[in-house]
């Protein structure tokens, strides 16, 4: 059984983008206030003299000098004029042409070249030569993390965070890494240290998030940002305001939480957009109009929105993009593989699960999705190998999913009774734990397994499960119901028994959806 796992309590934790992506965004900006930069008289004079001299003797070397100088002081048009001269001239060294090219086009030639291993190898060489480069170490750690080499990544992270203990990018990346690596205490240590040196709203927001994650006390902080503050101020404080709002929400102060969220969403960072989508979907649906215009800025938010509105193909496409942005994170791969399974694209589901497992080899959901997609592809032997690797279950939900997937394995082995019994076990566990959605899904997946295996009585199971879940309006229930209908279309079996099997008799009692999942009453 696949799972669309989401957070019970989503905190505002930074994402870990590549340095190139992070520095292109606004998160790493420090807006300059006060007087704008101006050139002194000597510099202005020299520009004119150099220009005249060049007109008299137009050599590539003179052009290169003026181009570089103009570029440094932000005289873009002048820099471009000389860059055009340089690209059409000969005799200069490569860095001058590279600079000219950059000035004219405004971007570097593909900075990411080759696969991860070759990038690691190149980075190693650079770091051997320039070991003081904190950002270089973070980049290196990210590559190791994508490959699932957590201990190597950790060494790099620790070097980076000691070289630049207060840098916003370095500290936030380190925090995200330690949470990924299951060591939030280290995340706490580094963010606390960074926070102690001075106030940075981005670092403070991270501190609140990590503190809440591990139940550490964070000194209560007041939101001093005026709603009429400048867009830039609102943006740079949006994560902090969102974090304060989340704390209020966790403390049961919904009214205050809403007030903070509304302010944070006026000009939100990408991370805040992602969080706002979760808030709207899980807590305050009435704020959708306020949050929705920004969803397009976050791939994670967009994926969940497409999923929740059942635009599955779009959701899969965006999940793939999200996976490229955060290739070490399990979440895009987990959701992407689940969505692909739900869409019947088991091959893609398998690939996404495998890709996600590279960085997260012990992730239960990814391993489960891999097994399910292999089973759906009728690769039983491969699925059995992968099923044997299922990590230790750490929650009741994992146990429920595990039992259901094991049930599917048995169905594929044509041990129908054992399979059915495992599905029933999953349903019982879910019911006991109050996990009504999982119970409904397990029931629907049992029906699908029976229909696909053409088990006698499959039609009855299908009818009963459809009946028991007809009020389910959650996207995963709707998708499972659709999958069951599709399975029945392609396996037009007739019931060979007329009597309701005993195992189905009490489903109408166990699969009752909680009130909040029912359609809103008018």
């Amino acid at each position, binding site marked *: 059984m696949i799972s669309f796992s989401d957070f019970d309590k989503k905190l505002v934790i930074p994402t870990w983008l590549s340095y190139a992506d992070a520095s292109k965004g606004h998160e790493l900006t420090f807006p300059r206030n006060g007087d704008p930069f101006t050139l002194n008289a000597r510099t202005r004079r020299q520009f004119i003299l150099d220009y005249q001299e060049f007109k008299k003797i137009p050599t590539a070397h003179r052009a290169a000098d003026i*181009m570089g100088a103009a570029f440094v002081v932000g005289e873009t048009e002048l820099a471009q004029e000389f860059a055009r001269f340089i690209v059409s001239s000969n005799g200069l060294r490569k860095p001058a042409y590279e600079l000219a090219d950059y000035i004219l086009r405004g971007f570097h030639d593909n900075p990411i070249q080759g696969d991860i291993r070759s990038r690691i190898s190149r980075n190693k060489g650079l770091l051997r030569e320039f070991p003081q*480069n904190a950002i270089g170490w973070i980049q290196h750690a990210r590559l190791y993390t994508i490959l699932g080499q957590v201990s190597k990544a950790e060494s790099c992270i620790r070097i980076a965070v000691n070289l*630049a203990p207060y840098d916003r990018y370095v500290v936030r990346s380190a925090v995200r890494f330690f949470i990924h690596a299951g060591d939030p205490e280290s995340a706490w240590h580094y963010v606390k240290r960074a926070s102690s040196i001075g106030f940075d709203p981005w670092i403070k927001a991270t501190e609140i998030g990590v503190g809440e994650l591990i139940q550490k006390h964070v000194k209560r902080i007041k939101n001093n940002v005026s709603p009429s503050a400048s867009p830039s101020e609102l943006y740079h404080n949006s994560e902090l305001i969102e974090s304060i709002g989340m704390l209020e929400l966790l403390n049961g102060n919904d009214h205050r939480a809403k007030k903070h969220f509304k302010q944070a969403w006026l000009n939100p960072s990408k991370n805040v957009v992602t969080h706002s989508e979760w808030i709207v979907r899980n807590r305050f649906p009435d704020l959708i109009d306020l949050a929705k215009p920004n969803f397009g800025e976050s791939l994670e938010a967009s994926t969940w929105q497409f999923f929740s509105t059942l635009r599955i193909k779009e959701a899969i496409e965006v999940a793939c993009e999200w996976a490229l942005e955060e290739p070490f994170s399990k979440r895009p791969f987990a959701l992407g593989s689940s969505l692909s399974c739900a869409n019947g694209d088991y091959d893609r589901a398998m690939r996404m699960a495998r890709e996600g497992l590279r960085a997260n080899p012990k992730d239960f959901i990814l391993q489960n999705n891999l097994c399910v997609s292999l089973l759906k592809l009728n690769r039983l032997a491969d699925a059995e190998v992968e099923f044997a690797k299922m990590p230790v279950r750490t929650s009741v939900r994992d146990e429920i999913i595990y039992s259901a997937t094991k049930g599917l394995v048995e169905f594929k082995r044509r041990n129908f009774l054992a399979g059915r019994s495992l599905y029933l076990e999953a349903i019982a566990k879910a019911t006991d734990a109050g996990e009504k959605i999982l119970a409904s899904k397990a029931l629907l997946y049992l029906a699908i397994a029976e229909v696909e295996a053409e088990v006698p009585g499959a039609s009855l199971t299908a009818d009963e499960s459809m009946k028991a879940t007809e009020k389910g309006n959650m996207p995963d229930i709707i998708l499972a119901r659709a999958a069951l209908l599709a399975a029945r279309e392609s396996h037009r079996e007739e019931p060979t028994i007329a009597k309701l099997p005993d195992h189905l008799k009490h489903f109408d009692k166990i699969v009752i959806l909680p009130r909040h999942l029912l359609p809103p009453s008018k």
Partner: protein
Amino acid sequence: MNDVALASRLEGKTIGKWTVLSRKQKGPDDPSGFFSSCYQVIDGEGRIAFLKAFNYLYAFHGMTGSADMLKLMTENFTYERDLLLLCSTQKMRRVVTAIDSGEYRESGEIVPVPYVVFEIADGDLKSFLSIADLPWKLQAFHGALVGVNQLHRIRIVHQDIKPSNILIFGKRVSKIADLGSATQFGNKSNWEVPHHPGDMRYAPVELLYRHFSPHWETRRFGADLFMLGGLLTYLIADTNFLSLMYHHLESHQRHDAFGGTFEQALPFLINAYHMSLAQIKPVVPESIRDELCAVIAELSHPDPDKRGNPRSLLNRHNQFSLERYTSVVDRLSKKIT
């Protein structure tokens, strides 16, 4: 009174023992000649030289504060002239020093024109680059290094080291010129300001980011070292180190947009610095690559506290001493000849 300042129309006149031949670098956009105008001059023995005439009339362009401006310009002229005399006295052979100086007056003109005469060069560094090979470039840089080192020995900092201020004599000998922004420790000039007094296009990166070390040596010697690193990079890679670094920064990280502290800027500046070094490395011949790139790296470190000789902390040598660099560059230039 003529509309054009006297300092800008000296052609044909006799100033002291010098006859003014022609004006260099005429500026059609500014007939007043900015702060100074430059001329080719000749003396009775046929010796051709270069005359720099200071334009005090500039002070009167602004309606208010003219007296202050005049005072400032006078002080600057006197300071530069005295420094040039000091350099002559100290026999600084790699610094372009004055061979004459004085004040020119003309009847009907209220404002005199102070001037300094220098030996004339074949051209500046840029004039020779298209025909220069690497050994020549390194020797030219070596000359500039020796010149700056001579200044540093008596605690004068140049503060405006750039290609157009390296003059070439006899096609081989390079010297550092233009002490117009220079200042000496303990002998305060108007250029003893926290920001960069010279050409900002080559300014040390920390000053562009408004970081002013409280230590004179770090702030001033460190600035000269950074500009020397930029000059060497220009000779090796045809582009200045600062422009290479900026090429690796996003626009919001550059000094004109960045509003954070220098400490907040350092991680991305160091990243850009390393990427620039990696970019320079392949264009340096292998036989001298490691040593020459180390020189560039040490001179151009974005953190002025880490600039210069990294071993100075161990052996208590002056971190900003140029002695070692002069000998390394000289040796490397001979190694590849």
